[in-house]
């Protein structure tokens, strides 16, 4: 097999990401629109997008802020949404663990669902790749995603204030979350976790905003893990 240059690997990653940009574009615009709608200043909206740079967690933080949760609960809910990235971080160690520290730091900053999924799939498909190719491909995926995410949030934020209240943008967030979560229900364990989350959150909705959600999330994670363990035992 002919070894490809890191540059060619970057181009390869870039091409693999193009279809995903179609999804990221409206999603990032939506964050801009909804953040302006919620009353954030333009700089704050962009601060979220550039510094936090994590779609679902940004939406989650915004929703908790609009709901009037306390500051620690806003943070807890948004960071809980991001916890899955620790798993991605661990999964990348065999591939990028030997890269220089600043490369790993930049890779961590740009670690999204898509960068993780697209890169690891490509690494497994072509095991001949060495560290330079892997790094090239990774940033070929990450750079267009991050650029589109940030620039399209700005576009959304700029047009956001022009949207009248009849358009029911209050419901843009729930719809986005439902669309995000539906494809994730790919096993019985995921379905059970989601159901427990809904039931416990609704049952505890009279607690201060966010408290019930944290309890529901913990219960749901444990339920998901238990069902997975149970399913494994029964498939053997």
């Amino acid at each position, binding site marked *: 097999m002919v070894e490809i240059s890191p540059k060619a690997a970057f181009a390869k990653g870039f091409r693999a990401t193009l279809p995903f940009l179609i999804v990221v574009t409206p999603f990032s615009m939506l964050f801009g629109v909804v953040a302006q709608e919620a009353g954030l200043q333009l700089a704050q909206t962009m601060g979220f997008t550039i510094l936090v740079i994590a779609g679902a967690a940004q939406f989650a933080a915004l929703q908790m802020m609009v709901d009037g949760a306390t*500051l620690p609960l806003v943070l807890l809910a948004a960071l809980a949404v991001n916890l899955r990235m620790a798993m991605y971080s661990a999964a990348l*160690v065999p591939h990028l663990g030997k890269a220089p520290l600043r490369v790993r730091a930049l890779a961590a900053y740009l670690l999204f669902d898509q960068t993780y999924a697209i890169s690891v799939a490509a690494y497994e498909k072509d095991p001949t790749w060495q560290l330079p190719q892997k790094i090239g491909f990774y940033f070929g995926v990450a750079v267009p995603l991050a650029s589109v995410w940030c620039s399209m949030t700005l576009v959304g934020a700029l047009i956001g204030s022009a949207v009248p209240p009849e358009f029911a943008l*209050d419901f843009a*967030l729930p719809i986005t979350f439902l669309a*995000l979560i539906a494809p994730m229900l790919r096993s019985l364990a995921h379905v059970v976790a989601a159901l427990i989350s*809904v039931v416990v*959150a609704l049952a505890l909705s009279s607690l201060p905003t966010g408290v019930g*959600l944290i309890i529901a999330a913990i219960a749901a994670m444990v339920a998901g893990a238990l069902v997975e363990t149970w399913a494994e035992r029964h498939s053997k």
Partner: protein
Amino acid sequence: MTWTNSEIWTIIGLLAVGTFAIRFSFLGLLGGATLPPVVLRLLRYTPVAVIPGMVAPLVLWPQATGGQTDLPRLLAALVTFGVGVWTKNLIASILSGAATLYAGLWFSGGLL
């Protein structure tokens, strides 16, 4: 919203640091260390554990209608979710949910 500017910037700053710490955790600091399988197993369920519980009250008791269950919003949620499960396509799911919401609001006289 009742947040001051400094509070909003505090949230952004802490979330930025916290999110980076999560992303950098293994790649940056723990190096070759591996997570105990039970932890990995729990982490796998964080998105489906957090997001449904956050959305459910918003769907059943929307603030825009003062907490009253609202048929257009409920239908929009069901369609979004149904299309999402069926197609696994984020955009198709969002668009069909939005279309349902606007159709419902239009029929009930809420839109224009």
